[in-house]
């Protein structure tokens, strides 16, 4: 090697015989597709369970959502003259997550509109994957919440009896709709909540397994945690964001969530809303979360704190969606504040 550097163009000049490229010549086996499809796979068990909780139409909603996200992604990439990369699974993942955060009783047409908004405006106009500032799925949800406030805040279904997965198929939602645990807690108080859902270990048990009203994919905490553990094992996510989100929600609910201080129910707070789904699968979205560990802890704390703030004092029963959306743009700021430790600064200050 010499002092004169060689330009990149020369390095990548086509080889006569063999491939010529810059070092390193080894690449790890991990790829974007692998990551995305693995996460999608981790979301399949909760989806299947949701069919047994809320009925078969959840599958339809998810399918519509995934399909429209993929189509919108392909169409936007075509329209913007970019390579079509629907195979990398990121649109499928967005579609899954989008379906997971809407109530099970809404019209299957809703996700189509959200997909246009989330994928085209939320992602591709900003430069495609990697350049969006907000989690597209949550942006889609926020759009739906603003456009169809009634459906998005009332189309909750009580878990089906036995295996009656076709019970809600084609039924009028008004007749069967119920309220989510958090909404009951917020609007009617603890007494009404206990009356509606019971209390104690059996309550936590059924909530953890998913037998409660809620968004399509948020209820089955058990399977979500299992999926999260697998992602942790694979090294696709680190513990920092999920743990800090869940811990903050639990801690702050314990302190402020009850009558007087330190009387809240931290376990219930974690199990009764979308905290687990949000903490494990939404907040850890690579593109919209910070990259350094300290920044991730602060980010998670911010999400947890905003979630509790919105739940206890805000206008919505559940705050995790907006909490993540509010923290998303801060991830760049946090990355700037908590830069990785350089190996060693230049002696005597540096340039």
């Amino acid at each position, binding site marked *: 090697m010499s002092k004169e550097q060689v330009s990149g163009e020369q390095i990548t000049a086509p080889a006569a015989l063999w491939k010529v490229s810059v070092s390193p010549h080894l690449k790890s086996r991990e790829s974007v597709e692998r990551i995305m499809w693995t996460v999608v796979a981790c979301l399949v068990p909760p989806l299947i369970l949701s069919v047994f909780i809320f009925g078969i139409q959840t599958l339809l909603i998810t399918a519509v959502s995934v399909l429209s996200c993929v189509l919108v992604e392909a169409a936007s990439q075509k329209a913007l003259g970019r390579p079509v990369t629907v195979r990398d699974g990121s649109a499928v993942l967005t579609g899954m997550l989008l379906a997971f955060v809407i109530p099970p009783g809404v019209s299957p047409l809703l996700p189509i509109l959200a997909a246009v908004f989330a994928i085209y405006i939320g992602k591709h106009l900003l430069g495609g994957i990697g350049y969006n500032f907000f989690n597209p799925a949550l942006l889609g949800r926020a759009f739906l919440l603003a456009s*169809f*406030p*009634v459906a*998005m*805040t*009332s189309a909750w279904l009580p878990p089906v009896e036995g295996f009656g997965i076709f019970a809600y198929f084609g039924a009028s939602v008004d*007749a069967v709709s119920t*309220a989510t645990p958090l909404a009951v807690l917020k*609007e009617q108080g603890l007494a009404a909540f206990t009356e509606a859902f019971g209390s104690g270990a059996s309550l936590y048990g059924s909530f953890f397994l998913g037998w409660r009203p809620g968004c399509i994919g948020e209820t089955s905490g058990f399977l979500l945690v299992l999926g999260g553990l697998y992602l942790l094992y694979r090294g696709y996510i680190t513990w920092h964001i999920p743990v800090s989100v869940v811990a903050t929600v639990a801690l702050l609910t314990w302190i402020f969530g009850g009558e007087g201080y330190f009387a809240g129910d931290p376990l219930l707070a974690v199990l009764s809303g979308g905290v687990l789904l949000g903490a494990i699968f939404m907040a850890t979205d690579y593109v919209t979360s910070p990259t350094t560990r300290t920044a991730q802890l602060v980010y998670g704390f911010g999400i947890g704190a905003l979630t509790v703030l919105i739940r206890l004092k805000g*206008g919505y029963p559940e705050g995790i969606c907006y909490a993540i959306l509010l923290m998303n743009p801060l991830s760049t700021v946090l990355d700037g504040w908590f830069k990785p430790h350089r190996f060693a600064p230049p002696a005597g200050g540096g340039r």
Partner: protein
Amino acid sequence: MRDMITIVVRLTISCLLAASVMGLCFIFTSNAKKHNEHVKEQQVMYELLGYSGAAERPASLAMHELYRYVVSSGGRQSIGYLLPGAEGEEAGFLFVNIDLDGRLIASTPVALSAGDALEAEPRNRAIQAAAGPGASVTFADQTIVVTDGGERIAYLMGGKFQGFKTFIHLMLAVDPDFALIGFEVLEHEEDPGLGAEIVEGYFKNQFKGKPFTAIKTIDVVKAPIPDDYYKALTGKVGEEEILRFREQYKEKDIYALTGATISAKAVAMGVKGIVTKFAYRIDVLDRVLQEQQLATSF
């Protein structure tokens, strides 16, 4: 230096010019403004009472403004009412001061022109004079007694209470038995599509015709409105049907707005508070007026 003087002079002249333009405009518009504000208010009132056009209004209809003040004197509080005096009375208005237990403290005739009575400034001055030295008076609210040929047919009152986001400002009409005739939302900042539905007929009409007994214990239920009732509320059925439904749901609670229970509940509670308070007060006032043989225009 010369420059300075020119600048100052020219700036002064332009300021004066601007000020005169604005001043003139203010003078020309201020009266129209007052007039128009009042017209708008009256229009809401008439609509609440069920008169949509000026033509329908009977000539015998009269509105009597009733201003309530809180009077503090020597550490004791009392309630003062400014009432329009009976026809032909010299002073025009009457100031009735009632203590908190409903006993008359004093009643003073107040000389005030009808036009001045509508204006906050002169009215307050007159009340201050009537309440006597050492007393401080604070304007509380204003109610309108509607009479038709000397017979009371309704009361109109405003009210402001906390909604889901900010304040909701209502104008209410109740009949002499304090059954609700209806209400109009004057101001609100609720969410479009959710809380903002409080201005919609299907919500407002649920309150129509509720007797005082129902209003005293009113609450909201979180359930969808039955279909036929909804039709009746939105005026999609005949007049008789509407009345039948009104009768059927008279004593029942209000169906909450889907997704906006808090706004709906705020309105129900607000209406309840306004009406019960008013009912209590007008009873006290009427009793005092009767006991003391005080004549008023209503």
